[in-house]
């Protein structure tokens, strides 16, 4: 059983009291352990990594690589070499769209995404298709928020070069049957990239079991620092891909005529990374594992169920997405109230929910709405947060209708 009071005492932002934070899909709050790690790095360890032979640099490099090992274990990757640190999910997808795309995607080739992707998993592929004159195909979803998996059969052709799909929708909360899709794609030799930005903090992820070719996620959505992310890629792919950015840290030998690149993972980590942030990754993983992914899932499911149930008790609430497999987020609108108006008023009541299109405009288009309110959960949320939100919504209804 998760004791949210105890957990909250680890999060300084809640010490000031008063705020109901239900915008965890945008970013999660940070526990003391993560903050301490960042602070300690700058106070006691500050140096550049993988460069100097002095004590600080050696120690920082060791800790940096310990973070990589922690990530490797957390997602059950086969080897540390398969874990690339990035600035976030967005950079990781851009890296693959650029490096894989420019090498393997040619004119008239096809990329498949879904209609429930975050803009970060749409735009890089759009740009790739434009650059290389390829075709972007879209797997639709139904009103319930489930992907129409059967349609995949019409979309997959011998021209398909990549399927890029989110594991969990940042608007609908749907957990997509990615294992099935990966299996199907592989039967045609098509690689699959999974956007794990909204799944990594809620579900146990095992990239070995999923067998996906690429899996990407952000640190800041799983209690670590902003400006950190992971690109997991199968070794066989990462070895073949050209580097993304070039510069210091990713080269073995440079002359003015040519350069020899580092092996993976450093080949993809040009320049000085966000060292403090990456170190905090391990602190965040340790924190999560200390609570336990199973416990987290159980608790969040309970709160999510309660939230949905209480919302539906209110008159005129429409919830988007009602898949049997959901986690993390509940998006909704109030009858006759623009989501912006509702968001502004809730904000005045110190209730942090997200309003707008959630960087997923195609999802808004599907439901024909200008935007939605979204409450998204983390393990520190409890029934009381939900109750305060519900009271807030009742107040919004009184003020704005």
């Amino acid at each position, binding site marked *: 059983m998760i004791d949210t009071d105890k957990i909250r005492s680890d999060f300084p932002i809640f010490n000031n009291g008063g705020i109901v934070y239900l915008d965890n899909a945008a970013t999660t709050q940070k526990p003391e352990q993560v903050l301490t790690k960042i602070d300690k790095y700058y106070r006691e360890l500050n140096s550049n990594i993988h460069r100097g032979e002095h004590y600080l640099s050696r120690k920082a490099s060791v800790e940096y690589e310990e973070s990589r090992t922690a990530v490797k274990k957390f997602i059950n990757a086969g080897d540390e070499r398969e874990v690339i640190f990035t600035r976030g999910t967005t950079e990781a997808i851009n890296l693959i769209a650029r490096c894989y795309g420019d090498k393997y995607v040619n004119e008239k080739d096809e990329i498949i995404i879904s209609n429930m992707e975050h803009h970060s998993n749409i735009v890089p592929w759009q740009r790739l298709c434009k650059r290389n004159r390829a075709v972007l195909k879209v797997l639709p979803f139904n009103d319930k928020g489930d992907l129409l998996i059967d349609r995949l059969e019409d979309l997959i052709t011998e021209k398909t070069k990549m399927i890029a799909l989110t594991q969990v929708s940042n608007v609908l909360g749907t957990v997509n049957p990615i294992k099935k899709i990966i299996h199907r794609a592989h039967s045609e030799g098509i690689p699959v990239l999974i956007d794990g930005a909204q799944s990594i903090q809620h579900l146990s992820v095992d990239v070995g079991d999923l067998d996906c070719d690429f899996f990407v996620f952000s640190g800041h959505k799983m209690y670590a620092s902003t400006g950190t992310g992971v690109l997991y890629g199968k070794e066989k792919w990462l070895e073949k891909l050209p580097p993304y950015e070039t510069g210091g840290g990713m080269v073995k030998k440079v002359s003015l005529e040519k350069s020899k690149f580092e092996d993976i993972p450093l080949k993809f980590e040009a320049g000085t990374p966000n060292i403090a942030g990456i170190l905090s990754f391990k602190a965040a993983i340790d924190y999560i594992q200390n609570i336990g992914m199973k416990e987290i899932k159980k608790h969040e499911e309970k709160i999510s169920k309660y939230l949905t149930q209480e919302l539906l008790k209110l008159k005129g609430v429409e919830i988007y997405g009602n898949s049997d497999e959901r986690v993390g987020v509940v998006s909704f609108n109030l009858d006759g*109230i*623009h989501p912006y*108006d509702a*968001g*502004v008023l809730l904000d005045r009541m110190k209730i942090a929910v997200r309003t*707008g299109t959630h960087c997923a405009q195609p999802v808004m288009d599907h439901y024909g709405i200008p935007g939605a309110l979204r409450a998204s959960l983390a393990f520190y949320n409890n029934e009381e947060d939900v109750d305060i939100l519900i009271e807030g919504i009742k107040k919004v209804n009184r003020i704005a209708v």
Partner: protein
Amino acid sequence: MMDEINTIQDNIIEEISGLNDWIDFYEYLIKLGKEFKAAGEGLKTEENLISGCQSSLWLDSELKNGRVIYRAQSDALITRGILALILRVLNNRRPGEIVSSELYFIYKTGLKEHLSPARSKGLSAILKRMKEQASGFMGTGQTPERKKGVGVIKERNGKNGESQ
């Protein structure tokens, strides 16, 4: 004439300072939003759209008898209420007055929160565009013919040649 802009601003500040709390403040904005007259035909075009992540705004303007007539609309009530206040201050003024006006009432009321970066695609963008359009009318101030604000901006961007 500038005095008139400032007098109205002072009136608005007084009205708002008479409100008890944030609930009253937003009820006031929402009431203004509900009373805000529906825009006529042809406002909601792609060209007139100032799109934010949060709510959509449409704006156009024309010059009539040397004065700028704005038309604006939004899909959100609070935004519409704010638009009503801005139009109360700036509508039907000479281009020069609009361009040199300082809209201090926004900073002296709770409205400034709506200027925060997250929402800036809305309110700050509309203020910027209103001044740009007024500025585009300058020099044509005495001509009685109707001139579309959007078209003038295009001229300023050089798309319509050197008609200035």
